[in-house]
């Protein structure tokens, strides 16, 4: 496919996804999802659009489209295990059902997003290509992350099938980490939009908040953080098929996590008390960005991993490591 066709396909996916999620993911749906109701009709639309297959074999799309879709899902806080389903479909075969992915710990798979609604759960480990695939999903513990997204424990039955996820570079765990970084970049983009809009509308002391320099500067810093998170994420996606994948993914997860901390804090400050209410939609995005920092390795984990790589090459090669040359 020519570059132009590829870009065209990518922008169609992005536009369609923005419309699909924009039309259906509203405050009501997000609240319902937090009460534990699976967003069934949203899922049905995702499948009807063919989005569940983006990035899968023979779909004509690859990782660039897959992660672009996750960015949009993050922007809308779409309450689905979309990252997990797309990556599972890409790795172990397309399924129309909901797939999820968690940490494989012997007889259990923990922190499984929407485990209770999944028909297939894959257990992976940070440092291994081996995975376990569970198709008769039995949830033995229900829980949720800081954003109220289901995170369950799933039993691994005797004789569950083992599989090896072969990627040219990086491993399954790191791609999930990148997915969270991309989703975070998406969610933070919306956080910034909300803060910008509010600052333009809300008036105090006879003028809009956006006219106060302290607020302008806070928003400027938030914008810089969002730009950094976005560039780190796109950079890692573009490096997925290179030997740089592991380092770039680490950088993206670290950078997105730092941005989440900063932007989440500052945006809430701009919105005042209204942003602290359950009624307001801001927290659906800030809580996700906060929660995702800790999934598939938090900043500290990835900092250590990247730091160990660099310590390994030594002081005189820090620069060649950073530049990849």
């Amino acid at each position, binding site marked *: 496919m020519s570059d132009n066709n590829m870009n065209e396909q990518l922008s169609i996916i992005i536009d369609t996804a923005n419309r699909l999620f924009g039309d259906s993911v509203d405050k009501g749906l997000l609240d319902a999802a937090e009460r534990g109701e699976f967003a069934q009709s949203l899922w049905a639309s995702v499948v009807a659009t063919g989005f569940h297959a983006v990035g899968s074999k023979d779909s004509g799309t690859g990782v660039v489209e897959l992660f672009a879709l996750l960015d949009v899902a993050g922007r809308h806080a779409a309450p689905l295990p979309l990252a997990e389903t797309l990556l599972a479909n890409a790795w172990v075969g397309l399924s129309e059902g909901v797939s999820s992915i968690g940490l494989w710990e012997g007889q259990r798979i923990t922190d499984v997003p929407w485990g209770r609604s999944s028909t297939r759960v894959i257990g992976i480990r940070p440092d291994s290509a081996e995975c376990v695939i569970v198709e008769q999903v039995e949830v033995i513990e229900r829980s949720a992350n800081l954003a109220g997204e289901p995170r369950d424990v799933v039993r691994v039955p005797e004789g569950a099938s083992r599989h090896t996820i072969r990627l040219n570079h990086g491993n399954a765990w790191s791609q999930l980490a990148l997915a969270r970084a991309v989703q975070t970049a998406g969610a933070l*983009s919306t956080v*910034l939009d909300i803060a*910008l809009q509010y*600052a*333009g509308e809300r008036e105090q002391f006879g003028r809009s908040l*956006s*006219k106060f*320099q302290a*607020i*302008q*500067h806070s*928003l*400027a*810093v938030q*914008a*810089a*953080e*969002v*730009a*950094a998170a*976005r*560039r*780190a994420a*796109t*950079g890692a996606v*573009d490096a997925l098929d290179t030997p740089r994948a592991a*380092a*770039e993914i*680490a*950088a*993206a997860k*670290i*950078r997105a996590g*730092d941005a989440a901390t900063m932007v989440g804090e500052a945006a809430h400050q701009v919105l005042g008390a209204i942003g602290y209410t359950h009624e307001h939609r801001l927290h659906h995005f800030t809580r996700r960005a906060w929660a995702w920092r800790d999934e598939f390795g938090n*900043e*500290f984990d*990835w*900092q*250590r*991993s*990247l*730091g*160990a790589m*660099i*310590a*390994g090459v*030594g*002081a*005189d090669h*820090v*620069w060649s*490591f*950073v*530049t990849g*040359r």
Partner: protein
Amino acid sequence: MLELDRVSLPESSEALRVDARAFLQQHRDLIGEPNSDFTTGHSPEFSAALGARGWIGMTWPKSFGGSERTFFDRYVVTEELLAAGAPVSAHWIADRQSGSLLLKFGSEKQKQTYLPAITRGESYFSIGMSEPNTGSDLASVRTAAKKVDGGWVINGSKIWTTDAHRNHFLIALVRTSPAQGENRHVGLSQIIVDLRNDGAQVRPIRNMAGGEDFNEIVFQDVLVPEDRIVGEAGNGWKQVTSELSYERSGPERFLSAFRVLVEFVRLVGPNPLPHEAAVIGRAAGHLMTLRKMSASVAGMLNQGKQVDVEAALVKELGNNYEKLLPEMTRLALSSNRSGRAAWRSAFEQTQLLSPSFTLRGGTREILRGVIARGLGLR
């Protein structure tokens, strides 16, 4: 503006990186004690060698001594120089800013007069914007140039002028005609001063790090020839603001503290403690991201795009990073840790320079204002 282009450096630029490293290796005796801050080492010898290699004015036309290379190529060479801690300050401003300004706005004769010597690494320029009563509010400059027979007579003073005591020329922002009521942007001009021959008095000012890099310049009836006005008289505001974008997005805005990281890695060795490894990883993760952002801006410069806001984003993040990096390493090390001498030397130099990071080239507050304008807030 928040969606920076997804560019990666072209292979031809990466090939140049190999050449740059070979060059640095070959000239390592000129580097002395490496310092990745772009203002720290002043070596006409190094600058001349770099010029001879064709790496000053890299993006300029060949007819003026340039190499007609891309901004990606320039990005790669400049970051290699900084990371190696090479002494680049002599030619830095002329290469980054003054030459580019002359190329864009200068007369044919000015280009022929000044650019080839800059590209040879022989002619160095300073920036004459700030004055005792003019800092962030640049349009308030009072130094004035008055048209007389045979030239312009300059009166007033400039301050914080980096390297004016050892550079050849200054491009000063001066008032050539009065402001029109509220509109202070009219009547400003840029004028070239020959720092060694025109009679301006230059006095170095010692900074808190002990260095004597910046200066005060006093003009008392300093007469300069007519053809020293850059571009058009009265067009100074537009010119000076366009110059600022070149000043803000480059790797010198995030690499000033790089040597601290290198020495930290050396100190903690191949098997660092978890928190030490984490410091390295965090520093590297941010640096890798900043490089991508800066390269994205280089790509925009290639396309001739306006980059003010994007450049401000890079400088804002980069300067914060330069300040955070030494601090992270400091807190990860016990103060009685043995073998810290090399790290400590890099740390202390950087700590003492660090207040300048968010001042020079436009303060943090001014940059946030630029970003806020880009966001439509003002």
